[in-house]
């Protein structure tokens, strides 16, 4: 078993109004099977609740599943995270994101956008890499 230093802590969640969560469930299970610790929430989380959760659980990566234009409020989430001192947490967005909005998200600070058709192993590998980066940059307590 890997040492506790290397177990990525990931939050998989949905903000906004959409309720389709097949993707987020499948990704959460895949990340668990890849040896990560996943906090999984149902849909419709408030941004403030996500920030509180990410703070308390000290997550490395936040995965937002978005199918129905909920990605449009991800910039608000990024802002809230920065204000709470969680600007170092990596945020990825998976789901249906039109091309013209992908740039918008990246500029808001999202690390990566995953489109339909992304394989689970590729998502897990990206999350692991991002988590390692977050840990490396953090100062010790």
């Amino acid at each position, binding site marked *: 078993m890997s040492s506790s230093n290397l177990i990525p802590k990931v939050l998989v969640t949905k903000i906004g*109004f959409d309720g389709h969560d097949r993707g987020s*469930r*499948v990704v959460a*299970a*895949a990340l668990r099977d890849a040896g990560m610790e*996943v906090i999984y929430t*149902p849909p419709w989380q408030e941004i403030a609740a996500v920030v509180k959760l990410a703070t308390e659980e000290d997550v490395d990566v936040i995965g937002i599943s978005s199918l129905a234009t909920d990605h449009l409020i991800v910039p608000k989430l990024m802002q809230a995270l920065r204000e709470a001192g969680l600007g170092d947490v990596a945020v990825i967005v998976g789901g*249906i994101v*039109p*091309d013209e909005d992908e740039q918008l998200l990246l500029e808001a600070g999202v690390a990566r956008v995953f489109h339909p058709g992304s394989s689970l192993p590729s998502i897990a590998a990206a999350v692991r890499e991002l988590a390692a980066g977050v840990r490396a940059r953090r100062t010790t307590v």
Partner: protein
Amino acid sequence: MNKPVDAPLGLQGAGPEDPALAHWRGEYASQIGTDRPVHNRSGIPIRPLYTAADWNPARESATGLPGQAPYTRGIYATMHRGRTWTQRQLIGLGTPAEYNARLQGVLGAGATAVSLIPCNSVFRGVDMDESHFELLGTCGTVVNTAEHMDRALQGVDLAQTSCALNDPSPFTLLAFMLAAARKRGTDWRQVSGTSNQSDYISHYVANHMFFRLALPGARRVLADHIDFCNRFVPKWNPMSVVGQHMQQAGATPAEAVAFTLSTAIQNAEDCIARGMDPDTFLPRFTFFFDISISFFEEIAKFRAARRIWAKVTRERLGAKDPRSWRFKFHGQTSGVDLTRQQPLNNVARVAVQAMAGIFGGLQSLHTDAYDEALSCPSEFGARIAVATQNILREEAHLTDVIDPLGGSHYVEALTDQMQAEIERVMGLVQEAGGMYKAVESGLVQRMIGESARHFQAQVDRGEQTVVGVNAYQVDEDRSARPVNARPDPAAMRAHVAAFAAFKAARPAAEVQRALDALARAAGAARDNVFGRVVEAAEAGCTHGEICATLRRELGFGHVQALV
């Protein structure tokens, strides 16, 4: 179901094999090279050839004829030749005015009925002044009052046009529509349509989009709704049992039918427990299914579903009227099979899915736009979707023959096998104490999750090809992709402002009285909650206010976080 199924075939081992068949078998084995076993999505093994040894036309009595129990070949004697399927395209975007414009376009292009998708904020039960502005109207129409509904359906004769409203408990959209109908002088007894996807169980399990009230509360309000419509809106289908959500969430086609029929049984038994006669409400039960691209499997699935439902309604639920035994369904081509890569390929996919639904004997069809996987569909895409149906009907002449694949050795054998698998899963639900309990315990959700993971694993391993995704990929010119249709922000801001003005101007005392009556009804078992919802709609209460009142009384639905 994630393991291959051993399904018994009809006439296996009956008599010595035909020499011609034996010869074929030999030739096949020597020429095929490497053959690999094939299973469909429900786990049923598929052979290279089906003959009379697999299904014999002499068994036709088990299959029946169109319009006769067990309805394998169709619920009506004439089916699409007599009356084509209803072209019911789901539409929803922006403000009621924008919706109305697109609706008129689609009706003009050949659609014959209305289906309204409200904004996600409405699905969640909140008004526009409680939502993030960015999310208003992006995927559905923002309807918060009776007035909005009236505007959305402007120019539509409610006595003549069937309207499907995608709106779960407490069915405020129908309440708004009935308020609008009354204002227009339209008799409620002429109003026809469906409370689309009123099935709270499927929402709890798989598409929490619709989940507003806690499980027990939703159960009560649905029963009230069915009761109310039975008495006052007799042409309305209050019960739309949904298989689409579960299949889209990953259930195999057989599982989707099994869970859906189990839900229908649960809902029917709840009504019977309230003293309702099955023959009064079963004829108004409709089903809503996903149609995947597993072509023959879908056809067999629907034929098997008809057979099982005919048996269940008669034998288990005690219905005597043949109209109660008929499995009526609306099919929607499955968005889950569509891809973002090379989106125009989706036109071909939708055509194949639609054909499967048509051969499966649906009563009403929605075809997806090709850009479904990119964003909410564009008008351009919506037009092609309607044209697809027109082409299948009028150029390919798919309505000329009833159940054209009936009698095919393969399709009939597969129908039998799908039936066996569906009944097996129904048995599991039965053992768990019925659908409500099975869902409460998480059994159904776990099975669906398993199937979803299994399918994804197959795609990731390349065992299931998805063109453009894990095979036949090309470098695409992204600029060629259609731009997202978004609601006009100025129009939406005006809509929000008008809403605020409306709230300020309406008689506050009347509104409060109606909400109080609604709250009291929720606590009184004998009062009809939906009846009070309609009264509240007519008194000018908003959608958010109605939902909040009922949530307070009946509890807010919380989803189980099962992975």
